[in-house]
Each structure stands twice: as structure tokens, then as C-alpha cells.
């Protein structure tokens, strides 16, 4: 019994040290929610992680495992409430329209941030974990419990979406549905089909 108590104390300390990381990740999961809502997510994650601590196999970093717990808590419990709240929000509150016209770069940033915050979270999280938090594709796959191939396709889709958003802004006229399909490439495709 003393053994499990020691182990329990140790795991609690390890989890406590990851609280800052979990709060960061909560912000990436709920970028538009208030601080309370994010803290709710972190607290639920802490409680669940403690309850499920035997599932951490002590291979690999505890942070990855906690991210994973947080992601599943988010999908199971917080995502739907968040959706309801955001959709009932007055559209005028959404800052995109209210942004003061600044430099072009600044506008581009605002547009991209707006677009990424509006993305479906499964796609957004792949992009943010990789681009902002610097996870490898394998780590992201483990956190989200999906195959690496799915990580790649979601990443690709998310980036193409945002890229279309960027180009809309810079005045380059590109049909977002036809982004990478230049006349040449279309010809090439046809050639391949004919062969």
C-alpha cells in the first residue's frame, strides 16, 4: 500500500509540473473561449489523468500522455458546449470586422488567425500542434489517436485552406477550390490519363 501511495505522490507531482503546458494546450484547443472555460478543461484533464494514471505506461514523456488525455476530454466534453456558445455569440462580437485597418501584414495575420480559429478542431489541432507547438507527426498522431497518414492529410488540408485565405488577401486572384491546378498541371494530368 505504501508503494502505491509513493507512486501516487510522484505521479501527482509530475502532473502538477505540466500544468503550464496543459494551459497552453487548452488555449490552442479553445482559442475563442474565456479563461474560465479553458481552466475547466485543464481541471477536468487533471482529474481524469489522476483517475487514469495507471494508463500512463511510463514510456515516453508524461506531457504527451497528458496532451492526449486533454484532447479526448476536449472532444468528449468541452467541444460541443463550446460550439453552442460560439454559435450563439453575436457575430458582431467576432473581432475580424472590428479590426482597425493596419499594415497589410497585420491584416494577413488577422485573417489567418480568424480562419484558423474557425476551423474544425480536428484539422486545426493537427496544424497547431505541429506548427506552433513543434510536435513531430508521430507525436501529433499519438496525441490525437489517429494514424500518421491522417495527420498528414489533415495538415495538408488545413494549410491549403489557410493558404487560400492568405491569397485572397494579397489580391492574387486564385480560385480557392482550384488552388494547385494550373493549366499546365491539368494538361499533365490529362496526359497521364491518356497514357
Amino acid at each position, binding site marked *: 500500500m505504501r508503494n502505491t501511495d509513493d507512486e501516487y505522490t510522484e505521479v501527482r507531482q509530475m502532473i502538477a509540473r505540466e500544468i503550464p503546458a496543459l494551459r497552453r494546450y487548452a488555449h490552442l484547443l479553445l482559442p475563442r473561449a474565456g479563461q474560465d472555460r479553458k481552466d475547466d478543461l485543464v481541471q477536468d484533464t487533471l482529474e481524469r489523468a489522476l483517475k487514469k494514471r495507471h494508463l500512463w505506461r511510463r514510456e515516453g514523456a508524461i506531457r504527451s500522455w497528458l496532451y492526449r488525455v486533454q484532447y479526448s476530454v476536449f472532444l468528449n466534453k468541452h467541444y460541443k458546449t463550446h460550439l453552442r456558445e460560439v454559435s450563439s455569440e453575436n457575430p458582431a462580437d467576432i473581432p475580424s470586422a472590428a479590426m482597425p485597418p493596419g499594415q497589410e501584414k497585420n491584416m494577413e495575420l488577422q485573417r489567418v488567425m480568424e480562419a484558423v480559429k474557425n476551423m474544425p478542431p480536428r484539422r486545426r489541432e493537427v496544424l497547431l500542434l505541429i506548427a*506552433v507547438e513543434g510536435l513531430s507527426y508521430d507525436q501529433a498522431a499519438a496525441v490525437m489517436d489517429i494514424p500518421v497518414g491522417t495527420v498528414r492529410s489533415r495538415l495538408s488540408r488545413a494549410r491549403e485552406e489557410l493558404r487560400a485565405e492568405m491569397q485572397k488577401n494579397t489580391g492574387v486572384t486564385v480560385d480557392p477550390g482550384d488552388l494547385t491546378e494550373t493549366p499546365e498541371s491539368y494538361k499533365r494530368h490529362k496526359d497521364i490519363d491518356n497514357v
Partner: protein
Amino acid sequence: MYKKDSDTDKSPSNIHIFDGIGEADLHAYVDGHLDTARRKEVEYYLRRNPDAAAQIRDYATLNTLLREGFAEELAAIDAQETVPPRFLAALNRPQPRFPVFAARAAAFAFLCLAAAGGGWMAAKHGAAPSENQLQEAALHSVSAPETETAVAPLPDFNPYPVPVPVVPDYVPAIQQPAVQTAPSLPVPSTEYQGGEADIIRPLPDPAGTAHDADAMPPASQSGQTETETLSF
């Protein structure tokens, strides 16, 4: 060498299949996940494919924009020096010997057995005290969180100062509430104080045998899905 996942690249937008360089390589290049040899191949490829080069530039810009866009908010989070007390309360909640659900189920089963086995009179005699017991247990479970949070606050506990030597400081701090604080609890009313120690124990005991069999019954379903996959 980087392994390409052909299943994921069926989309018509993938026009970079030539030279064995695919969409996946471009992303991995931008994210810095390619080894040197493959990176050189991709760079060679990019010099001959302005479309792909433009794509890569946009992806890199996107990465920069995203980091920049989140930088301020994330830095604010990193700069917070206090942990909200409720996080610590969540971590300091005493570990249940085994789940409350199991304890209740076991107590219930015990009562049913007693009632069925002892007949009408015996059931009456047996049930009266145990009903009492349950009530008090319920009272206890209501009052418990308050007393625990009253005891639990750990003002000096702070995971932020990263220097490792700090760790020994708060080791005892975390242990305290679970183990040592019981005697000094500010107990709301004297009724529990005597009863507490006595009441908590009878609940676990009858189920002591069932303990191993179903360690975490309420969450077993979701638990299992995690078990399969939690191997990193």
C-alpha cells in the same frame, strides 16, 4: 529516408508526385522533419518547380504567422506565476482507496444479503443501523470536500519556478493533506469527528475481496480504449 504515405495523397491537388517527391515531403520540409539527404532532394526538386517553391514559401509564411498570432496569448499563459487554487485542489483530493461506485455497490450488496439471509426481524435490526451508517456516510461525503480544500491549500507549491532543487521543497507539501492533516481538521461539527474514522472503514471492508476483480468499473469502457493505445 522519409517514408511517404501514399494512401493519403490521392487528391488531384497532389501534382508533385514526380521524382518521388510528394505533398507529404513538402510539408515535412517546411516543418523540418526531413533528414539531410531527403532535404537536399526536395531542394533540388524545388529549384525546378516554381509552383512547389511558391507553395513551400506560403506554408513557411503560415507557420510564422501562426506562431506570431499565438505568441502573445501563449506568452501570457507562460508568464502566469500562480496556479489557480482549484487545480491544486483537484490534484490534492485524497486518493480513493477504490472507486466510490464500487464502495456503494458493495455496501448495497452487503445490505441485500443481510436482509435476505436474516429474515424479517433480522433485516429490520440489521437495516436500522446501516441506514444510519449510510446517512452519515452521505453527510461525510458532502462535508469532505470542504474540509479537504480547507486543509489542502499549498501556498508555496508552485510548479513554475523550473529550477530542479525546488522539488524537494514541495514533496512533503503534496503528501501532507492526504496523510497527516486529519487530526488538525477544522471539523464543522463534532458529530462527524468521532464517526469519521469509524464510518469510512466499514464501507471499504465488505468489498475488500471485490477490489481486485473490478478495480475501476465505472470507467472501464473508456478505460479500455485508452489501454489499447496508450503506448507511447
